[in-house]
């Protein structure tokens, strides 16, 4: 009977929506507040766990960029002179921004697999984990920021009004990194060697991105690695503010958004749709 076939089809269609909870449809503002609280708690947990029991606490987070700064400014001013004006500010802004990426992305990679006890809790939003990783690492950048201002002040003079564009550049980098983080975090749930792959790619990325040297001009032969590199755009933004005291070029914002938003949306979809399967893979 075709009527009964219709009913079967209807039943099958209904069953596609396999898990349904009234709770999930609460107003967006509640979800945001809940996320806000969760972020705060997870963030403080991460920071306290890392630094509470060490003598100089958060000061450790400055060791890495400062030692890098020391090596680079010695190396590329005295040993292999690069002839970049205000090199200390130039390389410090690069090292700090790249440092955020190079710590946050590996942390995000293992963020979901490393918190299986959270993921297995009913109602826990898995999507928050990569975000926590990115923001936790941003704290290190924020702590080093005063130092960057001081170096910039000593080397290039007082900052100008263009400093107000800093949060925007910051946001652009955060957006790019969140997109990346979601993708690698989901990939790592399915393929446990993503972690190693991410390490290798970040290492290569460090050399391919103008962190300690100046970007290639568009006319030069290998310019592609810088004109199509979101991190190169973002570094350009930071350096405009700290080295040149100028406004960052506007195109870096929309170019970064254009690259990051599809990654972010794809990543969120993967986490939300696949959260069921993610749990089984853990």
């Amino acid at each position, binding site marked *: 009977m075709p009527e009964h076939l219709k009913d079967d089809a209807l039943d099958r269609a209904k069953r596609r929506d396999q898990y349904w909870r009234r709770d999930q449809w609460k107003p967006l503002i509640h979800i945001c507040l*809940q996320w806000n609280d969760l972020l705060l708690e997870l963030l403080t*947990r991460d920071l*306290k766990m890392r630094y509470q029991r060490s003598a100089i606490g958060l000061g450790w987070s400055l060791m890495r960029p400062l030692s890098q700064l020391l090596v680079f400014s010695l190396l590329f001013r005295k040993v292999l002179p690069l002839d970049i004006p205000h090199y200390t500010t130039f390389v410090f802004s690069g090292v700090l921004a790249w440092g955020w990426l190079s710590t946050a992305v590996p942390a995000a990679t293992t963020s979901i697999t490393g918190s299986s006890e959270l993921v297995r809790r009913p109602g826990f939003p898995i999507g928050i984990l990569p975000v926590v990783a990115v923001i936790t690492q941003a704290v290190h950048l924020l702590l080093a920021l005063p130092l960057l201002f001081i170096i910039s002040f000593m080397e290039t003079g007082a900052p100008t009004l263009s400093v107000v564009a800093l949060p925007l550049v910051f946001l652009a980098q955060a957006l790019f990194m969140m997109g990346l983080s979601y993708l690698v975090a989901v990939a790592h749930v399915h393929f446990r060697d993503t972690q190693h792959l991410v390490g290798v790619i970040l290492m290569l990325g460090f050399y391919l991105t103008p962190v300690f040297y100046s970007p290639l001009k568009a006319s030069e032969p290998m310019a592609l690695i810088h004109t199509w590199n979101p991190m190169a755009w973002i570094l350009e933004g930071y350096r405009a503010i700290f080295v040149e005291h100028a406004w960052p070029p506007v195109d870096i914002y929309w170019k970064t958004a254009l690259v990051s938003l599809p990654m972010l949306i794809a990543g969120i979809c993967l986490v939300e749709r696949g959260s069921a399967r993610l749990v089984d893979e853990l």
Partner: protein
Amino acid sequence: MRQGAITVHDVGKRYRPQGGARSTTLKGYLLSGRSVVQSKSFWGLRHISFAVAPGQAVGVVGLNGAGKSTLLRLIGGVGRPDEGQIKVRGRIGALLDIGAGLTDDLTGRENIFLLGVIAGMRRTEVAERFDEIVAFAELEAAVENPVRSYSTGMRMRLAFAVAVHVRPDILLIDEALAVGDQAFQQKCIARVKEILNGGATIFFVSHDVSQVREICDHVLFLRGGRVVGYGPIDEMLPLYTSAVEAKVASVQHEPFAVTKLPVELVPQVSRFGNGELQITAVVLLNEQSTPTSTIVVGDRLSISLTYVGATRDRNAVIVIGIYAADDTCCFETDSKLAEFAPVVDTDTVRIETTLNRVDLAPGDYRVTVGLFSADWQQVYDYHAEVYPLAVTGPGPRKGMLNPPTQWQQVQSRPTATSPDHGLLGQHSLDRNS
């Protein structure tokens, strides 16, 4: 909205065995090519259907590996079923893996906030209930110390205290009430009851029959990923205890040796009980009193049941039930409800239960019969959904109920004395008679 309800419809969850065909590394995935070999998967849960009304407390019992915890997780939204659907209404609170989320380096206070927020509370809510939580956990003296210095009991109490202060609409509990000393356990149970009295729904997995009895009013009995039975605690709990006893007594003791039945009964799958009283014959009779397994809708059906050992318990309760193909109970009654007691003068008793009309939709059904002690503490013999019953004839478009139906057009006469009811009986058509 302090209400909660769980609806589970034909849910199945499939598991791949560990080390299956699919690689967990990208390298392995690329090397093995894209060919996905269908590995031998097994169903951890299958054909699970039941519904829990708001305010009900359901105990989930079953031997190890029955799928209890899997079901609990699915209801909590952790993982999705591979088939079927689950509907949950309300805020979920969970007492699963108590103590897993504690962070050693943080103090008790910080952990309370962290756990509370992870469990779905707002920071302000946690702050409001903070004193209450600490008092409940009996940790006033230690709350500022790092959790690293806590004993196992203290950790459990802390985690439990946070979990029960979430004020959920649905509370999922997985073996979590075995925390701390007797006094604290009693406090936990009292708190769970308080949540229940506040209108919440409770879903409680436990091996501890006495705790299930204390908290729950309904029991879901799982075995090997299937529902054996879902019903009032009086009937289901003895079934479970008998299954446990059978497992303890192992295969040496075969209580049903004397029985020869036309249908094959598998102990612990379709047959339960201690065998003190045994059902030796079950026959379905039609209107002409001839044995049958097929009746026409609306016909009379008699279920004839013979059991031995009647002298050992003269007040045994006889349970008769009809179940649909998807394990839904269509009808179940017992002799206690009907205030019927057989007169026992021999050891063998034959009872005939007659259903005057079987107004079920056409389809395949199965008949369940059982013998219980009058206080529902023991199962003597229980044949779960084994005797096939086919119902044929005209039926409804959909559904299980098939009452005699009549359609009529009501004359609209404005001058009529009772315009609301029109004329009954005119142009009527009784389809079933």
